[in-house]
Structure formats: C-alpha cells, structure tokens
C-alpha cells in the first residue's frame, strides 16, 4: 500500500506537470462538448426548393406558404418547366423540386385525390430522408386544414434525384382520424438533450483509453520501466498507480461535464447521480483495461495513439451516438452488443432523461461488469507476459 502511495504521488506530480496534459484534461472536454453539442444535430433547416407550380391554385399556394412557414423550406427559384428545375437541382442551386401539376386542385375537389411530386437530391441520403419527413408533415397538416372545405387526399409521389429510399409514398390519414405525435422523455425533440449525455460518454472514454494507454507506454518509450523493474515494486502496484489517477480524473471530468450539461444545455437529470457515477466507475474499468491492453502491444506513445484511435472510431461509430443502432443491419446490431460504449451511452440517456433506476438498467450494468472482469483479467495477464 505504501508503495502505491508513493507511485500515485509521482503519477499525479507528472500529470499536472505535463504542459500538454492539462489542456487535454480540462480544455478539450469543454471545447468538445460545446462544439459537438451545438454542431451535431439531425435537423436540416432552410432546404432550398425549386417550385414548379403548373396549377397556380389556392391549394397550391397554401401548400407553399405552409412549407415556408415551417422554417424547413425556402423557395429558391420558380423555374418555368420541370427540365429547368432539374437543372437547378443538378447545379446544386436547390435541393428539392416541388412540382404541382395542372388541375391539382380540380382533381382534389372532384376525384378526391390530387397528386404532387417531390424530387430530392439524395447524395446525402440521411438528410434527404429527414427533408422528406418534413415535407410529409407539412403536407399532412395542409391536408387537415383543407379537410373542412372538401374531402381531400393529397398523395405525394416521391422520386429520388439519385437515390431516394424506395416505397416512400404515404397515404394521408383518412378523414376523421387525427394523428398527434407526442415524444416522451424528450418532449421537444431537443437534439442537445439527446446528444449531450452521449458526448459526455465520449469524453470519459477518451481519458480512460487514450491517456491511460499512453501513460503506461511512456515508461517503456522513455526507458524508465527498465529502472523501475529492478526495484521491489510489484507489478500490480505499478498498474494500480498507473490506472487509478485516470479513473479519478475521468470521474471528475464527468462531474464537470454534467455541470456544463445542466447549466449550459439544461439537460434534464431525472435519475440518481450516485447510480450514474457508480456505473461510470465500472465503465471506466472497462476502458482502462482496454488502454492497458493497448499499452502491452505497443512500444511508443505514437503506436498506442494509433491503435487506440482505431478501436475508438469503431466503438464510437457503432455506439448509437451518431447513428441509431436500430437503423443498422442485423449483423452490426449484433456487434454493438459487444460495444461497451453503446451500453454506457444507453445508461446515461436512460438515467438522465428517463430517470431509470438500477433495476431498469440492470442488464447494461451486468454487461459492463462482465466486460470489466474479462478485459481486466486479459490485459493484466498480457501485461505480465510482455514484461519480464
């Protein structure tokens, strides 16, 4: 125990003396949280629309008005023909063509079905999907609005500019049935509420894996391990002293991040913070073990960085932070079951936004505990093997 104390003192001294380390520890998380939380959003605003209105009717004008009023669409041009509109799309002067064909309103009044066409540039498929959904919402609300006048059904007919998801046509709800969506746990569908807990996980993960692996490798790279290994220091003492500081620092960082989340982003915190920190402690054991394992297979800090980066990118991309896990193919969804980052993001969201208790996240907690046990055992065993 005494040896661990001495080693810890030395570690903290070195960490706080390292001029590169302090900004990484306290500047980077702040900047990342600020930039990512504001920048990462699934909202697509002000889509530029080329309007080809061959009908020039009341309903057509109403539709365009409502689209612009939504804030998601701006009419950028009014070309005379569909061919000219296609040119706008091609040269990126607009992102969407809205075509209201002749006799649209007449068809609506007589036959009950009017058709309009929306053509989207789907180079960015995700954005195109979002824009399409917005358009549907506006059309649906216009439908409801004109229901009073006549029995209406506007059937939008979608054509992708490049690649629009097939089968995207939608039948408007039958008259008399109103669909009122209500988003629970995040009523305003606020992206920051959704993103910030996930970004906090990223920060804690970076410290756990990157900094710990680099710190262990550094002793190898500088050669100090050679001197340490001929002292009576036991290996487990060395490891505890190497990893414990980052475990503590990451938890402090999490606290710091949560304060920012509360103050700056007003993220709701419904669940128990004690539970959150307890699970964060377990999660960090997993990430520290990963960092330790990386340090055993690398010789320099640079190599450790590369390996950590490689592992992290996969973990983060498949964590459900940027893309919903539900939208991944089955095999990828199966893989995310092995991804500790995904579990902890899920825990963060459930505990913070939904007020989940331990019973609600017991499966996730058990998974993390299992990861921690297995990875720590493997990493420590590997460490013993690679150093004499």
């Amino acid at each position, binding site marked *: 125990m005494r040896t661990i104390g001495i080693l810890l003192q030395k570690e903290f001294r070195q960490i706080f003396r390292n001029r590169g380390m302090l900004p990484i520890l306290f500047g980077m998380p702040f900047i990342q949280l600020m930039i990512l939380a504001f920048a990462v959003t699934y909202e697509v605003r002000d889509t530029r629309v080329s309007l080809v209105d061959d009908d020039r009717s009341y309903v057509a004008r109403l539709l365009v008005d409502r689209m612009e009023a939504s804030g998601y669409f701006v009419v950028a041009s009014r070309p005379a023909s569909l061919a000219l509109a296609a040119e706008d799309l091609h040269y990126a002067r607009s992102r969407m063509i809205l075509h209201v064909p002749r006799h649209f309103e007449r068809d609506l009044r007589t036959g009950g079905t009017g058709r309009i066409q929306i053509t989207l540039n789907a180079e960015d498929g995700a954005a195109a999907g979002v824009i399409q959904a917005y358009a549907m919402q506006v059309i649906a609300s216009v439908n409801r609005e004109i229901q009073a006048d006549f029995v209406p059904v506007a059937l939008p007919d979608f054509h992708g500019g490049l690649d629009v998801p097939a089968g995207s046509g939608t039948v408007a709800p039958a008259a008399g049935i109103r669909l009122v969506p209500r988003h629970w746990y995040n009523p305003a569908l606020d992206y920051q509420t959704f993103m910030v807990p996930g970004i906090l996980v990223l920060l804690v993960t970076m410290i756990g894996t990157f900094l710990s692996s680099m710190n262990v490798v550094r002793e190898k790279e500088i*050669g100090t391990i050679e001197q340490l290994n001929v002292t009576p220091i036991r290996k487990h003492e060395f490891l505890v002293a190497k990893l414990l500081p980052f475990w503590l620092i990451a938890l402090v960082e999490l606290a710091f991040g949560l304060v920012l989340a509360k103050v700056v982003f007003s993220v709701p915190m419904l669940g128990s913070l004690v539970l959150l920190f307890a699970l964060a402690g377990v999660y960090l054991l997993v990430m520290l073990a990963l960092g330790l394992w990386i340090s055993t297979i690398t010789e320099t800090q640079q190599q450790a960085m590369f390996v950590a980066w490689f592992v992290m990118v996969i973990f983060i991309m498949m964590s459900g932070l940027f893309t919903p896990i539900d939208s991944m193919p089955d095999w990828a969804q199966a893989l995310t079951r092995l991804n500790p980052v995904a579990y902890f993001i899920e825990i963060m969201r459930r505990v913070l936004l939904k007020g989940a208790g331990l019973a609600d996240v017991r499966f996730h907690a058990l998974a993390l505990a299992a990861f921690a046990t297995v990875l720590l055992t493997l990493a420590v065993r590997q460490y013993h093997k690679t150093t004499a």
Partner: protein
Amino acid sequence: MAASVVATELHKAYGSTVALGRVSFAVEPGELFGFVGPDGAGKTTLFRILVSLVVPDGGEARVDGLDPVRQYRELRRRLGYMPGRFSLYQDLSVEENLRFFATIFGTTIEAGYDLIREIYAQIEPFRDRRAGALSGGMKQKLALSCALVHRPKVLFLDEPTTGVDAVSRREFWDMLSRLRAEGITIVVSTPYMDEATRCDRVALIQEGSLLGVDTPAAIAASFDRPLLVVRTPRRLDALRVLRSYEHARSAWSFGEDLHYADTRDRVEPAEIARLLAGAGIPDAVVRPATAGIEDVFMDRMHGTAAPGAAA
C-alpha cells in the same frame, strides 16, 4: 569468500541470433570488474540477465548468492542497476527522482547520504532542476546516485560513460574507485578500451563470447609477438604494404598510428622501415612498442593477420 557474481554457461538467443553463447565467469566481492567489447557484443543482454530483467535460455547465474530468475524479488533489494540509456524521470526534479527511488526501496536520502555524498554533492546545487534539463555528466551522476541510494551490495553499470565527455569520464571512474573502497562489488561495461585499465579485472567480450578474463596488465602482457608502431602520413598505403608482408601477423590502424605485429620472435624496426621505403613510402617512423589491451583484443578478435578485415 564466495564469489559475488557467478555465471555458469549463460545462454540467450533472440531468434537465430545468439546474443550470449554459454558465458561463464566469476566476480569476487569488492571487485571492480569490467566487460569490454564493441556494440552488439552481448554486454547489455548479459547485464539484463544478471539484474533479473531477462530470463536466460540456459545456464545459471548467482548474484550475491541469489538466483536472478527465482529469487529476483529479494535480489532487486540488493542490487543497483544503471541502464545504458538514461532511465530516470526527466519531468521530475533531481531531488524528486532521488527521493522517489529512495522511498520505493523503503529508505530515505538521508539514510543513504554518506554513500552518495561525494557524487550527489556535485549536483545538489541543482536539486530543483528537472532531470531532463541536466547535462550528460550531471545526468550520469544523478543516475548513479539513484542506483546507490539504497546501499546495494552489487552495482551493475551498463556503458555508463557512453556519450559523456572525457573529463566527466575520468571523474566517473574516480568515483567508481572510491565506491569500490566502500566494499561494493561493481560490474561495469564499456566499449572504450582505455577505460579497461581502471578495472581490477577485465573480460573481453565479442559476439556473445568471452575472449579472455584477467587483470588489465596480464591481458596486455599476453601479447607475445613483437609490436611496432608505424607513423606515416600515407596510412592506407602503408597498411596495405604491411599486411601483404610475408612475416606479418597483423596490422591495424590505431588513431594516428599503425600497429604492426610480426609472426617471428624478433623484428628490427629498421627492417620494416626499409620494407616501406621499398614500396615507395620513405618517410615512415617505426619504433618498438608495448602492447595494450586493445592490441590483444584486436588480435584475439581476428585471430591472425586478416588483410581483408576493416582496419
């Protein structure tokens, strides 16, 4: 008295490269024992086995009576090791480094002070300076202080003077001589032949094998052929002429001079001067000389005259 360091048939190979081939020797307590050999001779591998950092493939070692493989934990309390590469914390100060190593050995700077006083006193004025900001000579003194602070019985120094200026090198060897007077067994390695004479006994090491173990004087005296020193501005031409001479045993370039050894029991300097003059090198100065350790090393390393080998 039992030997302080004993190696019996120590063997270590990395893949197909033999780093150490069945090496045996013994170091007496209180001895200053030197391993002399070029880079890559196996000195570092040997030291790392003895200080318990590497497990040998074969053979046995005893350091202060302990087996570095099985009794490494007890052994590590009793030995001091200074690796060839500076291995202290560059971002900690001089005093923090020394205090750190003292405390992990369960002692204090004060308790070990009388042993390191002479060395540490020279860097104590800089005790608050980061170790990384010290000069080469001062780093070396700090490293030695850290290796000594727990009063080891045996001290291993792997190429302590490599990359250190000539004055600091001499000071360093003076320090070693004084430590030896304290009764500490010192095992040191060096690529510099001139430093071998400061040791009680020397082992010549080359390609993982010992070429001989003896006192520096005895090693030098073992050179049993007549040796001549040749000085001429045209060294390369002279070297070629000497090596092709029928009685030549060896001819090597030693700094400014050439060392020539004959296969016969006697050789007159005038004879060699005539030989060179006949080959178009008239102004060579030739005189008899006493062989040094380096002559012996070159001789044993290459056997007899090796005209094709690098000078």
